[in-house]
């Protein structure tokens, strides 16, 4: 991609046209110098729908798509990431891929190897880093504004993925709420605090009745405790967090951060009002993420999410799954992944070691 500049139209090929592909394609629409050129999905009707919205070509095969674009954007169920990363890398295309990088560490390693060999960037969509509230939380902690962090809560709950996302309920494929959903917070935790020493977990998994729920406790040798609530058993999507430190406290609840509510009189049940809450942003986090990826592909910026970090998030999520499955403490050794020094630096002073 060297030499390509912003005035060139970068042609994006979307592999997978499901739910998250919708967020990606909406983002491309707003990014100058980029065009969603082609879409391929095993379900042609889905490809057709997104392609029509963006004037893109529907491809009959992955190979056809890879031959017609400059960048591959993989929005497939997790187990299919590797095969498609390999194909894109072999075609010499930079790869954008949804999180989690792979369902296994072997998949992650193979994906990283393929992209390293092909000398193409591998950009994994840990989009929470681009949510302003989560990057602000990181800034506050790293800037020392709450002193030494002590107890951190991260809550990410969603309703059961519906019939359209049936693959989510195949645990082997998705890894359930811990692997697929909590991984967002696990990545944030690694990005902000580095690698924990151990994880403990409790959960309730009942895929037959489309229920999955988990409580995770992460501990660092410095004494930091992080607690994650992850759910596919709620009534809707919600996030909240709290970080308490030696010198302060910061808290956030998505349900309180609603700056606009428009109620339509008479539109609700029984003639009452119907409230439509909104939290508008000039730029969606998905757009901010993809703009960054495009700048990396154009070699205007260094990648803020490295493949090694995406691998480490998978590693931590797997440790959490093990902890929940066996109801035991799982200790984490040193990372075999390639977490770069830059994200390991900590401005935060860490607390005293555990006295026992």
């Amino acid at each position, binding site marked *: 991609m060297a030499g390509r500049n912003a005035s060139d139209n970068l042609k994006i090929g979307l592999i997978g046209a499901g739910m998250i592909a919708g967020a990606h394609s909406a983002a491309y629409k707003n990014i100058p110098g980029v065009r969603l050129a082609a879409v391929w999905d095993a379900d042609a009707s889905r490809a057709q729908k997104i392609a029509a919205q963006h004037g893109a070509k529907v491809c009959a095969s992955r190979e056809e798509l890879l031959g017609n674009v400059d960048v591959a954007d993989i929005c497939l169920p997790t187990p299919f990431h590797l095969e498609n990363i390999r194909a894109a890398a072999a075609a010499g295309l930079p790869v954008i891929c949804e999180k989690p990088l792979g369902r296994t560490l072997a998949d992650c390693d193979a994906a990283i190897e393929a992209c390293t060999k092909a000398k193409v960037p591998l950009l994994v969509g840990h989009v929470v880093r681009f949510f302003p509230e989560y990057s602000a939380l990181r800034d506050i902690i790293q800037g020392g504004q709450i002193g030494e962090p002590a107890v951190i809560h991260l809550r990410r709950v969603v309703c059961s993925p519906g019939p359209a996302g049936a693959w989510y309920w195949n645990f082997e494929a998705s890894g359930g709420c811990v692997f697929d959903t909590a991984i967002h917070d696990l990545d944030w935790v690694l990005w902000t605090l580095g690698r924990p020493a151990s994880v403990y977990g409790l959960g*309730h998994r009942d895929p037959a009745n489309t229920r999955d729920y988990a409580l995770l406790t992460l501990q660092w040798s410095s004494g930091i405790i992080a607690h994650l609530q992850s759910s596919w058993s709620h*009534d809707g999507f919600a996030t909240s967090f709290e970080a308490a430190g*030696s*010198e302060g406290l910061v808290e956030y609840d998505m349900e309180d951060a609603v700056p606009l509510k428009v109620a339509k009189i008479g539109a609700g049940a029984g003639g009452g009002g119907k409230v439509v809450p909104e939290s508008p942003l000039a730029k969606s986090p998905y757009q901010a993420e993809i703009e960054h990826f495009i700048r990396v592909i154009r070699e205007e910026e260094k990648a803020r999410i490295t493949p090694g970090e995406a691998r480490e998030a998978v590693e931590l999520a797997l440790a959490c799954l093990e902890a929940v499955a066996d109801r035991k403490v799982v200790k984490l050794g040193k990372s075999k992944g390639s977490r770069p020094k830059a994200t390991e630096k900590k401005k935060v002073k860490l607390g005293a070691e555990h006295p026992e």
Partner: protein
Amino acid sequence: MSVKIAFLSFAHMHANGWARQMLTMPKGTVEFTGIWDRDLARAKKMAKALGTKAFASREALLAKKPHGAVICSENVNHREDALACAQAGVGVMCEKPLATSVADARAMVEACRNAGVPLMTAFPCRFYGPALRLKEQIDAGEIGEVLGGVTTNHGRQPGSWFANPKLSGGGAVTDHTVHIVDLLRWLMGREFKRVYAAVGYNRFKLTRKAVGKRVLDDAGVLSLEMDGGAVFSLDCSWSRPEEYSTWGDAKVELVGTKGVARMDLFRQRLLLASSGTKRLAERCWADEKDFGIAGEFIRTLREGRPPSVSGVDGLRATEVVEAAYRSAQLGEPVALPLS
């Protein structure tokens, strides 16, 4: 007949709150026998404020044959005070935690049982409107079978004897585990079977200021498994800084097969900022049904029936606390009941 109440210590100022509640009960409901405190000056001061007498000896006060005694001494003294009441044939309402060890809690339960006097643990949360409504809705199956939930009982390091483990028995885990453990046992009608605890020591500025050279737990996240398989977490940390809008919270989020409940027990509040408060401050206007736990104590004594919140409830909560400390030491989950 009015119910005669003695107060054993005002080390915990909840005694003052309950005494005030008793004073607002219909005339003739309650009569104060007097106050004894290891700190005689405090006994005198409180006696003056509440219009009763201070006693220099606990036995002299108990010899006046009150029907019941409210124990608000330092945690480690609960046992001795309760045993004295049992011996004198006086019913007990003891501030939480019931005791600082399972052995002490058991001794208190047994002594009161043998003496035939009621023993209550002061778990007032059960009497707040939102908790009562939540229980009603769980019992009616509104959220289906409860799979688990996340709870918090955050607090602010209270200072004074709370910061001295020789008197308190421990820090945040001792102080702020028991309310929620009791609420969950009551809401679910089940017992806990396993505890894992991540505990932090001297993590917060207020603790560091209060403890001097001592080491005290002030951060804790407990993972709790209940009979039947429901899973819960509980943050009992003293993590509210002075600058925060209030002392702490009591929150319960329950996830069921048919619904989700989120309870914030003290959310009925105003937010006030003034030159008096310096910061944004909460003014809670939640109320308690039938004079709350104090009312329940009086009714228990008057009606001569077992209390709805018992010494055994206090014992069970104490067990979870002890298991939590053990778990933190081992770095492993610990099974209940403790062996």
